[in-house]
């Protein structure tokens, strides 16, 4: 099967005594095995709810979510589905439970009932994947935010998931921590062929993704390559999202009369485009 996760006609509502709010509406999306997808959207657009539907933390009110062909409503497969689709959340401090890094990473595989030697091997491999091997005996609360978040990712990797869903994993981190997480995630996708679904507010984190999906009011409003999506400035602004500073700069130079290409996100490409348009090498 090509798709690791398929979301079919899903609707999801939150209910309390007074109001009923539909947060996901007739939603359809499929994630290809080994792909790297970034999901963007303002607060309240339904991103986190979607994330929780993907591994059965929430069950759809109507429609189906299939993980590797198995419906998340099938209660007998619940553990298998949660193992296949791992989740990383925003706050690293809420996700670490043990007092030693390697014990924290071992928590998942221990709960799978694996043999000690296999657990050892998985913990070592997972810590190596996120570049934290030398901290295996450290105490989590002595680590930086970015390091703690990498331990949280290692804890998921030790379960050998097919897909990892990260819900704003960098929101609480400093620029260095953010860069560490993005690098780790990109590496897992490229080198270990892990399917990655990354939810974020930071446009720069999306530039190397295969696909960018923009959500608004519980529906998809854009779905394409990062360049296609980010160059639609009007659309991004209409759903209250930021335009990457590079793209905005080039658009405004073009509006100011410069003959310049605008479908650019990375700093290197922006630099090339400006240098060419303004003949800067020749000055």
């Amino acid at each position, binding site marked *: 099967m090509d798709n690791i996760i398929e979301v079919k006609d899903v609707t999801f509502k939150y209910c309390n005594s007074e109001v009923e709010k539909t947060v996901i509406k007739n939603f359809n999306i499929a994630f290809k095995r080994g792909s790297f997808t970034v999901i963007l959207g303002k607060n*309240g657009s339904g991103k986190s709810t979607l994330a929780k539907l993907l591994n059965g933390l929430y069950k759809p009110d109507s429609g189906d979510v299939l993980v590797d062909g198995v419906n998340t409503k099938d209660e007998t497969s619940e553990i298998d589905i949660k193992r296949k689709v791992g989740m990383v959340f925003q706050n690293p401090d809420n996700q670490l439970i043990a007092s030693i890094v390697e014990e924290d990473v071992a928590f998942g595989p221990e709960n799978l009932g694996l043999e000690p030697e296999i657990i050892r091997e998985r913990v070592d491999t997972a810590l190596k994947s996120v570049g934290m091997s030398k901290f295996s005996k450290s105490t989590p609360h002595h680590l930086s*935010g970015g390091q703690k978040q990498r331990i949280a990712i290692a804890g998921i990797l030790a379960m050998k998931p097919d897909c990892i869903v990260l819900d704003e994993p960098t929101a609480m981190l400093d620029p260095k921590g953010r860069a560490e997480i993005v690098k780790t995630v990109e590496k897992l996708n490229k080198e270990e062929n892990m399917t990655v679904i990354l939810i974020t507010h930071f446009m720069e984190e999306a530039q190397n993704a295969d696909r960018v999906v923009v959500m608004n009011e519980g529906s998809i409003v854009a779905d394409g390559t990062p360049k296609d999506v980010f160059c639609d400035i009007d659309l991004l602004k209409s759903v209250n999202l930021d335009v990457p500073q590079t793209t905005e700069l080039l658009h405004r130079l073009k509006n100011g009369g*410069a003959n310049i290409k605008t479908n650019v996100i990375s*700093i290197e490409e922006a*630099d090339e485009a400006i240098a060419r348009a303004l003949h800067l*090498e020749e000055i």
Partner: protein
Amino acid sequence: MSEVISVKNLTYTYGGNTPFVNDAISDITFSIESGEIIGIIGHTGSGKSTLVQHLNGLIKATSGEVLYRGKNIWENPKKIKDIRFKIGLVFQYPEYQLFEETVFKDIAYGPSNMGLSGDELNKRVFEICSLLDIPNEYIEKSPFDLSGGEKRRVAIAGVMAMQPDVLVLDEPVAGLDPKGRADVIKMINAYRNTYNATVIIISHNMEDMALLADRLLVMNNGKAVCFDKTEKVFSNADTLKSIGLNVPIVTSVLLKLKEKNPNIRADIFTVDKAVEYLLGIKAEGDKNA
């Protein structure tokens, strides 16, 4: 201009007399003029939050002192509460501290602790709500029925309602979407302009700092490595990168261009200024062509 806050040789040591002794901040000295917006940047664990908690006496320094308008804030320890009304601190994720039944009561909590009541208290709350565009229909709602961004604004309004002379905000935009960030930044500007307040902001977002801050205090491992005008700080990209920070993206683009052509200026850190500057170069080029 007059000095509002002056920090002298401030040091705070965790775990003194234990093997884990560690200086969270050490020997920090700086002073802030009335009406300035000061940004504090630094990697996680660099001591930013510890530093600002000294400013209103939530933490007492191991050595060194904090002066508010020339007086040591601990001169009369019984009066430290008054200092906390003058120097208002908004914590990280302040929406977690909402607790009252209605938005009105939550915003009124701070001012009522200052001794305000009745009409005076109502006036305070409505004044801040109208300044910050918090709609009237929210006033009687439970704060827990609001969206994340709205909760954040109500929580910040609760501190602003005390009308502090110095407003200190620890990561006020963390975790918000672009619209939420813009709303909070607008609130901060409105507050400062209306009450001539001094503002101190901790943030990891260099682009927001570029738009807001007059001067930046850069922290690394508990030390203040630099305190200077925002443009000066951002023109030093290598130093910032070496301590886990960065410059705004638009500045990175100009720095790259500068590698190609040494005549390019890189002391520009907002998109507006960069567009103006680059179009200026284009106009020059067109004239000469």
